[in-house]
């Protein structure tokens, strides 16, 4: 299995380089990856359905629980069928869809192949964290594919929206997965399902995971990214946004439901969100004029349906859900690809402009109608089989009771109605417009569509073909002894479900026929509902975010150095000062001075320092600061450091010289100082800093108990260091490394001065360019 993933990756990296030579035929090369996968899965199907899943395990980061564990079980097999089976056909379709001169073809082919691999990894992953890895990879590839037409602002916005929404969900889900793994003590998916943990943390974890599933599968209120994503080329819509990627959330729910559907908030949450999504999607689909957007909202609706079925947590619902999963993958990608052909041959997909295509493109019309009928739930198609099973599962006291059933019924009515609207919109001859001119598509272009559409019919007529697959998944639920699941069938006899199915179709047809009054009603309702428009909410939250970012940045990033320095020093006051005030005290053991002369010098130095701040002339200020320096040198002498004093004295002198060099060119007086109030603020900060440091010295000094580490320097300097001036021995021997660093500083400072003030007579204006 790892080899198959590697094949995807290798081809994804290779095809961009092959594209310039092969043109659109590069997709035939890329199709090798999903085709090989589908072929491989077919050979393993027997084992998997007999309860012997294929597994492989490779270590990655054992310390973090990240393992490359892969596992092909019935649900995985079902998903691989969609991901790689449908995928192969979409790749073949691409070869006809794109023209040779298409910009960015290689890039597109590479990313699409990469997506195919990521999606495969997602459904095969048997490690929660590995699943997340592939999950996000599908988000990223989807982002790049939606933004394929990057010169259109609409594409770019749609790409960003899809990325942000799905990644937000993904990150929330990651937290849930981590919690789940933490509670279970393992990140192994099959391990957790075999022995599911319980407890309040698990409930929280599940809610977080579900948020991820909801965003990925475009559930209300996260759904708007999916219709927007229709900005992508049609093969992407068919593959990512109908058959494969959007199923990831549903897949995850299907994966976890057998073990966790019974945990408290799962069922109400999944059922509510799923039903709401089904109804909102169906409702919105009914009023679209763009065929792709119609299908997109239809997908939203169907994803809600799937969410209800697969999340309900009963084997019967799961059976129906798995069947619908398959059916939807087939009919929805057929419909998208059909729209792609229409768009390609006529240049439009607006149903108000299309007319008479049924006659011009009969094969396509037939296949698409077949798929639409399957979507509507008309026998003898697979969609019908699935819906029958769903009604069956909820009619007889399924979770949620009558309310859920009513919701499903209503949603199915809407589905039937927009299915009719699609067929009518795409193919009917409308009196209001002229017949749309269309090119005849090449057989190779339509062939994948036909295969996909026909398979829905075949599986509907022979439900036994799909039955073992969905049964095997449903078997992952514990079943009471003696109870057996019904098999999929076209004809169960005259059951209540059949009656409801008939009613659904009739009501759907009615809704379609009354489309004018419905449309008016919708327009009125949408005006009322615009306040709760989720797409607007997305824009508003981005605006809010931008505003928050702008405001906070305006505050912290004022661009003013004094403000920055003030912040730094205030932080010191708050943190260090806080600790000093809160946790220490100055007690006893203080003396006014070591030598009285210290006090005299200190007063002079302090006075000079204060005078520095008040000086109006630059030169005065510099001389005063020099006086402070010399005073400090005297204090050094008094403290017992003649070397130090000598150095300080010389350095101070040289610094003065430097100041003079620079000041010679500057005006003699400081500019007028700023308003009194801001000076007061400065004085306040200054006082606080001074107080904190002074207190710090006293407090820290009192904490000393042990003699200093330098106590034996005096004894060792002469015999071991070869000198009697201990400070010098420290500098060149004990701590010679410091000195080495220090002269390095001098060297570099000198070099810096040389670059800033070149000795040659070059003015800075000349050399700044």
């Amino acid at each position: 299995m790892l080899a198959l993933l590697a094949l995807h990756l290798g081809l994804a990296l290779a095809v961009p380089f092959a594209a310039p030579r092969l043109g659109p035929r590069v997709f035939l090369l890329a199709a090798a990856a999903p085709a090989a996968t589908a072929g491989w899965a077919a050979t393993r199907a027997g084992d998997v359905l007999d309860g012997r899943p294929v597994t492989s395990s490779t270590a990655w980061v054992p310390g973090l629980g990240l393992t490359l564990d892969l596992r092909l079980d019935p649900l995985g097999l079902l998903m691989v069928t969609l991901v790689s089976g449908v995928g192969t056909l979409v790749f073949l379709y691409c070869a006809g869809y794109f023209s040779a001169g298409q910009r960015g073809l290689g890039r597109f082919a590479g990313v699409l192949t990469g997506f195919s691999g990521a999606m495969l990894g997602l459904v095969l992953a048997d490690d929660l964290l590995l699943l997340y890895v592939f999950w996000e990879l599908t988000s990223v590839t989807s982002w790049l594919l939606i933004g394929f037409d990057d010169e259109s602002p609409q594409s770019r916005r749609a790409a960003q929206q899809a990325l942000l929404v799905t990644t937000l969900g993904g990150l929330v889900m990651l937290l849930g997965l981590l919690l789940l793994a933490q509670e279970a003590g393992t990140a192994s998916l099959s391990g957790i399902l075999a022995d599911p943990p319980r407890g309040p943390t698990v409930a929280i974890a599940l809610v977080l995971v579900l948020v991820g599933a909801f965003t990925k599968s475009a559930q209300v209120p996260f759904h708007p990214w999916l219709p927007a994503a229709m900005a992508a080329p049609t093969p992407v819509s068919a593959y990512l946004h109908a058959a494969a990627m959007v199923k990831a959330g549903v897949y995850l729910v299907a994966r976890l439901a057998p073990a966790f559907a019974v945990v408290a908030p799962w069922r109400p949450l999944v059922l509510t969100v799923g039903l709401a999504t089904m109804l909102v999607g169906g409702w919105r689909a009914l009023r679209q004029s763009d065929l792709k957007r119609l299908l997109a909202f239809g997908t939203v609706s169907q994803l809600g349906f799937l969410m209800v079925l697969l999340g309900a947590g009963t084997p019967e619902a799961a059976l129906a859900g798995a069947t619908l999963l398959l059916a939807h993958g087939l009919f929805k990608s057929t419909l998208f690809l059909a729209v792609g052909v229409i768009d390609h041959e006529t240049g439009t997909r607006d149903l108000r402009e299309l007319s008479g295509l049924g006659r011009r493109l009969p094969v396509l019309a037939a296949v698409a109608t077949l798929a639409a009928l399957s979507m509507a739930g008309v026998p003898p198609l697979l969609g019908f089989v699935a819906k029958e099973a769903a009604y069956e599962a909820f009619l007889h006291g399924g979770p949620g009771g009558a309310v859920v059933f009513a919701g499903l019924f209503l949603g199915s009515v809407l589905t039937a109605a927009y299915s009719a609207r699609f067929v009518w919109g795409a193919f009917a001859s409308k009196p209001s417009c002229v017949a749309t001119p269309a090119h005849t598509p090449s057989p190779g272009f339509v062939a994948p569509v036909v295969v996909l559409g026909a398979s829905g019919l075949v599986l509907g007529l022979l439900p036994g073909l799909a039955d073992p697959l969905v049964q095997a998944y449903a078997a992952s639920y514990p079943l009471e002894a003696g109870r057996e699941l019904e098999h999929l069938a076209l004809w169960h006899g005259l059951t209540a479900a059949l009656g409801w199915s008939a009613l659904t179709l009739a009501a759907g047809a009615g809704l379609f026929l009354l489309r004018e009054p419905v449309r008016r009603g919708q327009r009125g309702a949408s005006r009322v509902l615009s306040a709760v428009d989720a797409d607007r909410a997305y824009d508003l939250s981005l605006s809010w975010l931008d505003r928050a970012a702008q405001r906070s940045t305006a505050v912290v990033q004022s661009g003013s150095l004094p403000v920055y320095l003030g912040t730094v020093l205030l932080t010191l006051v708050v943190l260090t000062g806080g600790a000093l005030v809160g946790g220490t005290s100055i007690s006893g053991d203080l003396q006014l001075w070591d030598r009285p002369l210290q006090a005299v010098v200190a007063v002079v130095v302090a006075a000079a320092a204060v005078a520095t701040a008040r000086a109006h002339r630059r030169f005065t200020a510099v001389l005063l600061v020099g006086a402070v320096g010399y005073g400090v040198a005297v204090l050094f002498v008094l403290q017992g450091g003649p070397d130090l004093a000598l150095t300080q004295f010389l350095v101070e002198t040289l610094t003065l010289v430097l100041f003079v060099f620079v000041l010679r060119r500057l005006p003699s007086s400081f500019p007028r100082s700023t308003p009194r109030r801001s000076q007061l603020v400065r004085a306040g900060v200054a006082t606080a800093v001074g107080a904190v440091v002074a207190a710090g010295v006293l407090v820290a000094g009192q904490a000393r108990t042990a003699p200093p580490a330098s106590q034996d320097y005096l004894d060792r300097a002469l015999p071991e260091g070869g000198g009697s001036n201990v400070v010098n021995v420290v500098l060149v021997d004990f701590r010679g490394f410091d000195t080495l660093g220090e002269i390095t500083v001098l060297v570099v400072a000198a070099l810096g001065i040389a670059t800033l003030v070149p000795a040659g007579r070059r003015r800075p204006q000349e050399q700044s360019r």
Partner: protein
Amino acid sequence: MTTSERADPSRSVVLETAVRLVFHTVLVFGVYLLFAGHNQPGGGFVGGLVAGCAFVLRYAVTGREGIGRAVPVDPVLPLGAGLLLAGVTGAAAWLLDGQFLESGKVELDLPVLGVVKATSALPFDTGVFLVVVGLVLLVLRTLGAEAEQ
């Protein structure tokens, strides 16, 4: 400053002569401090700074050209050489199986002078001295020269 001094040539000559005399004295004193530093107050820094002050004095009177004449080398040279000397002194200890910067006394048996003792602290401190002198010279050449205009 300089301009006014130049305007009065007689004063400048007196001053210049005086400074020339002092200049070498101070310079030698700086070198003395370098050598004495290990046992008395002084050392590479102090010595270098004193020598630097000698150059500043000289500069104050003769300006940039005067400094150029007194020290006809690129100030970058003592900077690099000083750092290299200090670093190499430190690394030389490796050759003698010691730790980096480990001080050693070398006893050289020279033909004429006989046995000469030297501690490795001296070349190290000489490196420091050179760097400090180089810095002062460079500042005089750049900031000093620029401010002269």
